[in-house]
């Protein structure tokens, strides 16, 4: 018997897609790499500050176990622990691999990798290449995939968009439907497996730190075809971004990792130039409220604090929704070497020099912890069985998801510099399992009846014909802006049920008005309008998952904060008390006096809340609505407990 060569379609050419493609090629499998744009322009280039690995090069006593603990704690214990554990243990090998690929990481005097601090940890764990780490990592992977392209193992289809999956009669993925963004042609590709590495949904909010292609459309389209979507309501708001009409540009957490301090004038009417405001008249609210972690508290905490200072205390700079991020105490040479890229961006887009003037920043939508539900297989020892075809597989057999588009790894809040890690880790980790999956298939793609593919193509041809014939009154781009403004106003840092209910009604209204769209351009050649209208349809459905998930989750967890349901932690509380409490509880009745006043009551409430809500929310598409249910989280290694950063 001649062994046939398997074929896998990878959709998306960011860190996750490229690392998956590289690993799968290494197994001798052909890859068709599909991307909206040349893969070198993928959104991963926007990642700035670095990538985490507990290499402990500074002798601080860091270890993969501590990295694991920090990550699950940062995510408020909502992530499946075997995955996080495996990722953190693989992290050093991943950094060494990227180093071998030629990434221009910053170096120590001895020529080894340099590390810096990031949020949510007390260790220097973040390797970095200036402040363009994402770009540098992406280029290295792009180069390796180009090498395979040169060898004939990779075929790139750039300027193409994924529209949906091709399912056979047993609902197994046999390929995908694609749209040539130049010619407008719609066609199918048959494959042994399809991998979605399509990134996050920042565009749902109109303005975010996301790139133009980050619409979440591919994930939503797949959800509409029956795939489960997990933890949709967990959207990370990055504390530090700079304003813009077209996007909110990220100001990396590394600015704080390298010593940047966040403050506002104590007197909101203090209109002096910030450099003239003396220390005594400045309110360093993160340092004062969180003496241990200071400016490097996790992002959910920092964003809420900024929100509190600006909106509830009215202390925003100049009365606006802004706070200072100050690096002026650092030398220009140090800043150039470690943060050059982002400081240039700031100066280019605002006209102010951040080396001499504190930056004005505000939180912005940044990352989706949620995404397509994917599976994994534990090795029974708290790590992952890397050979399992189940790893990263969505609820549709043969369809995989990886990178920001999946819902794993970060729980309810992602720690800085863990996204580059999770993208590369999961892309590489899934490789052997995908290769094994292709071997288990009873049929080659060529053996699937052509009618399966014809039907999928015909469905999309009629859909696009329908879109092009839309001749109503609504402008698709304006309707998108309205959707974004609705989510920004109601599904952001602080969430209220009344507002969320209204948001769902507003989404319904937007969906109705979608029917009255005008397709502004009906030409065939390189016409982005019909494609955008289709994306908008998907965005409407995805925003419903997020808003409904947020409405139903009556608790505070990570980035999901609902003051109505907040369980206030006593000031002097120590999270270890909770571990004591659980232990005591297992063999005797716990008495009030065993803990400081009020602590037992708090812990009981916390426990009760966790029993109810420490679960992934899973959305399934049913009769035009997301139906949401809850799944248990594997928290078998580190006992979930209250978070504390002061």
């Amino acid at each position, binding site marked *: 018997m001649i062994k046939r060569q398997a074929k896998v379609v990878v959709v998306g050419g960011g860190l996750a897609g490229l690392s998956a493609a590289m690993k799968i090629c290494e197994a001798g499998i052909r890859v068709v790499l599909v991307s909206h744009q040349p893969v070198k322009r993928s959104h991963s*280039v926007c990642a700035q500050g670095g990538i985490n690995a507990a290499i402990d090069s500074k002798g601080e006593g860091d270890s993969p176990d501590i990295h694991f603990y920090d990550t699950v704690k940062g995510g408020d214990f909502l992530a499946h622990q075997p995955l996080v554990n495996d990722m953190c243990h693989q992290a050093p090998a991943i950094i060494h691999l990227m180093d071998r690929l030629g990434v*221009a990481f910053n170096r120590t005097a001895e020529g080894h990798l340099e590390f810096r601090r990031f949020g949510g940890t007390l260790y220097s764990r973040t390797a970095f290449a200036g402040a363009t780490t994402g770009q540098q990592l992406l280029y290295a992977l792009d180069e390796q995939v180009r090498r395979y392209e040169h060898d004939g193992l990779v075929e790139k289809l750039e300027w193409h968009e994924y529209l949906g999956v091709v399912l056979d009669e047993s609902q197994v993925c046999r390929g995908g439907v694609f749209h040539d963004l130049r010619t407008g042609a719609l066609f199918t590709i048959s494959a042994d497996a399809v991998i979605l590495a399509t990134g996050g949904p920042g565009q749902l909010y109109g303005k975010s730190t996301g790139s133009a292609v980050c619409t979440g459309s591919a994930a939503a389209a797949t959800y509409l075809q029956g795939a489960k979507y997990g933890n949709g309501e967990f959207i990370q708001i990055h504390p530090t971004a700079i304003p813009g*009409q077209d996007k909110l540009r990220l100001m990396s957490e590394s600015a704080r990792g390298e010593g940047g301090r966040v403050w506002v004038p104590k007197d909101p009417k203090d209109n002096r130039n910030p450099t003239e405001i003396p220390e005594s008249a400045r309110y360093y609210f993160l340092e004062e409220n969180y003496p241990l972690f200071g400016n490097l508290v996790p992002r959910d905490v920092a964003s809420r604090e900024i929100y509190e200072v600006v909106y509830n205390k009215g202390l925003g700079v100049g009365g606006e929704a802004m706070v200072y991020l100050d690096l002026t105490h650092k030398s220009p040479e140090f800043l150039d070497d470690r943060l050059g890229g982002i400081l240039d961006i700031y100066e280019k887009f605002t006209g102010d020099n951040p080396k001499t003037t504190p930056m004005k920043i505000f939180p912005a939508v940044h990352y989706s912890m949620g995404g397509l539900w994917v599976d994994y297989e534990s090795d029974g020892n708290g790590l992952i069985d890397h050979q399992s075809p189940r790893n990263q597989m969505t609820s549709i057999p043969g369809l995989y998801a990886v990178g920001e588009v999946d819902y794993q790894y970060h729980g309810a809040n992602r720690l800085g510099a863990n996204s580059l890690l999770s993208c590369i880790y999961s892309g590489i980790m899934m490789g052997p399992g995908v290769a094994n999956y292709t071997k288990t298939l009873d049929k080659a793609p060529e053996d699937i009846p052509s009618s399966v593919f014809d039907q999928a193509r015909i469905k999309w041809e009629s859909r696009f014909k329908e879109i092009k014939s839309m001749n109503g009154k609504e402008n698709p781009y304006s309707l998108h802006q309205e959707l974004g403004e609705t989510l920004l106003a109601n599904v952001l840092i602080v969430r209220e049920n009344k507002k969320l209910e209204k948001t769902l009604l507003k989404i319904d209204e937007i969906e109705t008005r979608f029917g009255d769209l005008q397709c502004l351009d009906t*030409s065939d050649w390189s016409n982005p309008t019909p494609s955008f209208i289709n994306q908008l349809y998907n965005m409407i459905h995805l925003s419903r998952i997020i808003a409904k998930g947020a409405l139903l989750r009556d608790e505070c967890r990570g980035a999901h904060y609902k003051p109505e349901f907040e369980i206030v932690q006593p000031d002097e509380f120590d999270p270890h008390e909770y571990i004591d409490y659980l232990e005591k509880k297992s063999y005797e009745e716990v008495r009030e006096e065993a803990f400081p006043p009020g602590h037992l009551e708090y812990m009981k409430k916390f426990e009760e809340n966790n029993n109810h809500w420490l679960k992934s929310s899973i959305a399934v598409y049913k009769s035009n609505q997301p139906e949401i249910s809850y799944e248990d989280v594997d928290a078998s290694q580190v006992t979930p407990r209250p978070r504390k950063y002061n």
Partner: protein
Amino acid sequence: MSQTVLIKIRRKDNPNAAPYWETFELPEKPFANVISCLQDIQKNPVNIGGVRVKPVVWDCNCLEEVCGSCTMVINGKVRQACAALIDPLEKPITLEPMSKFPAVRDLQVDRARMFKDLEQAHAWIDIDGTHDIGEGPAIDQETRHKAYELSQCMTCGCCLESCPQYTLDNNFLGPAVFSQARYFNMHPTGAMHKDKRLEPLMKEGGIANCGNAQNCAAVCPKHIPLTESIAEIGRQTTFHLIKKLFVE
């Protein structure tokens, strides 16, 4: 609406269609850039004559000058549209597609040749495999600093647009590729396959075709020392040639 901005755009419906200029009048907004103006046109695609037209088509992605996608010619200068703030630009603003790459539509061009040329120049590190074989080679800070300057190339095409030697129909590789070859040759592992990168640069379209106009370094948005790279590759190819003469 107090202030407005006039934007004149060189449009083209498809690669074979005749180009034409179309002007739009847009409201002036704080922090506006060329991209946000093009987005405003999408929301109200009406030209200055009051005629409803097809929205302008352009490429963009990251919107913070790290992906290279939205490169175009703005007021006669090639640069990224996202980093072109409206306020300091001379008005009316003119937008044109780059001229050294095949036209696609309006401000879109096809830069596929740049990526193909990277393949020609063996622009990658040859590794044994992705499995864990430990640390990479130690690299001194100075070399790393130099490498980082070069590694920020976004393949945006600014250098080629400004280069008199690079044309639509020749095979000149151009400064971006030379600089990438230098970058990989600088890496301890990359240097082991130096010759594979130098050989293609010594053929027709290679380093000898550089006319030394030095426009490239002046327009590079990442301030990559491209002329320095050209000189260095010139040196490396010369040595390679001499070495070959001796060996043969």
